[in-house]
């Protein structure tokens, strides 16, 4: 979706303000929000792509007015609600009102192995790669209403394949619960002037990581 999360090239947000000696968390509730979000992935069973879509799929005003972990919380609540794990009336009441679903728990002993394993997304390739390093490719002009990872600022622009990463889980389908549908993944590099015209900083090159179906051969 063309949501407020797709920010590359937007103006008006002001300067970047680094915080000296920034703590890992800025409040106790951020610690807890972080931890319950990570822990609930096991009982919830959602993919990282579903999580991302739950966070970004909101009105731009809402997205932009929430802080980072507030967006995490909103996404988590939506994912749990969709699966009937925790419902809005329970959040309002502050206590369980409905029976527990039979789902696995992330126990203390599972934490280290879960973090060490992570969630690798490389998969056996379903077909030979269509593009090779050095190929000129066009990022499609596409505007799906669902989840996608092709940012607006490269759509319709031509770049060059710089890296080939093997086949990876396709986020657009994974977020839509239609499966992993692995595709070849490429790093595609664009000249700044191709993306921003005369308004690009000189000498700039920018890459995105793009799945094969986001791309077409370019002359």
């Amino acid at each position: 979706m063309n949501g407020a999360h797709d920010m590359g090239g937007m103006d008006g947000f002001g300067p970047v303000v680094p915080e000296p000696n920034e703590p890992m968390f800025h409040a106790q509730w951020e610690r807890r929000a972080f931890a319950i979000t990570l822990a609930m992935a096991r009982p919830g069973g959602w993919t990282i792509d579903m999580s991302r879509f739950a966070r970004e799929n909101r009105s731009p005003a809402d997205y932009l007015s929430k802080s980072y972990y507030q967006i995490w919380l909103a996404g988590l609540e939506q994912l749990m609600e969709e699966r009937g794990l925790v419902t809005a009336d329970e959040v309002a009441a502050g206590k369980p009102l409905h029976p527990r679903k039979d789902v696995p728990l992330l126990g203390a002993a599972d934490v280290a192995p879960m973090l060490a394993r992570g969630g690798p997304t490389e998969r056996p390739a379903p077909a030979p790669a269509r593009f090779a390093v050095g190929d000129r490719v066009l990022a499609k002009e596409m505007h799906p209403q669902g989840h996608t990872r092709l940012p607006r600022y490269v759509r319709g622009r031509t770049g060059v394949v710089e890296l080939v990463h093997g086949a990876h889980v396709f986020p657009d389908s994974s977020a839509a619960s239609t499966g992993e549908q692995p595709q070849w993944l490429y790093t595609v590099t664009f000249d700044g002037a191709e993306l921003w015209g005369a308004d690009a900083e000189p000498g700039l090159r920018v890459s995105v990581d793009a799945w094969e179906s986001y791309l077409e051969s370019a002359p």
Partner: protein
Amino acid sequence: MNNHSETHAHHHHDHDHSELSETELRVRALETILTEKGYVDPVALDLLIETYETKVGPRNGAQVVAKAWSDPAYRARLLEDATAAIAELGYVGRQGEHVVAVENTPAQHNVVVCTLCSCYPWPVLGLPPVWYKSAPYRSRVVKEPRAVLADFGVTLPEGTAIRVWDSTAEIRYLVIPMRPAGTEGWSETQLADLVTRDSMIGTGLARAPAEIAA
């Protein structure tokens, strides 16, 4: 998305305080429900927080960079397959499943961003700082990285080209900053002290020896 998290020093809304309380109460309610329903184990939650607050952070990445500066064979392995080379030092897992290392040179400076969310190489850098997740950084660095670097007090030579890596998939990028001059013969431990978090994102440079002498 707010540039700053709620408790950051700069408050833009009069009603921040009540929102903070609302959010705090909501998180407490959620945790209570999840615990009582048996969906989360409080000990596991504490372990998750402890891991990222105390064990995983940019010191990991600094070790990787220092080793690459010191050991040409390791540097070659890092540039060839960063995931495996980083795993040699024991840094693996979540948000670091597929890592690519990109090396700064006098000709090219690398900067990493995730314009769509907050992708970041956790095993080597820990959790990202607020500015990395903020709208100003995500919106501007793909279009005007020199202006963004100026916000960090960094000015690059005009002849250095800037290469921005937007992490739109599960590939995570680690910048290998240039080794500062005057560090010949330094140990990996000494070198690691020069490697800042920002230098591995590309919004900073490695520190000069004089900066840590004091």
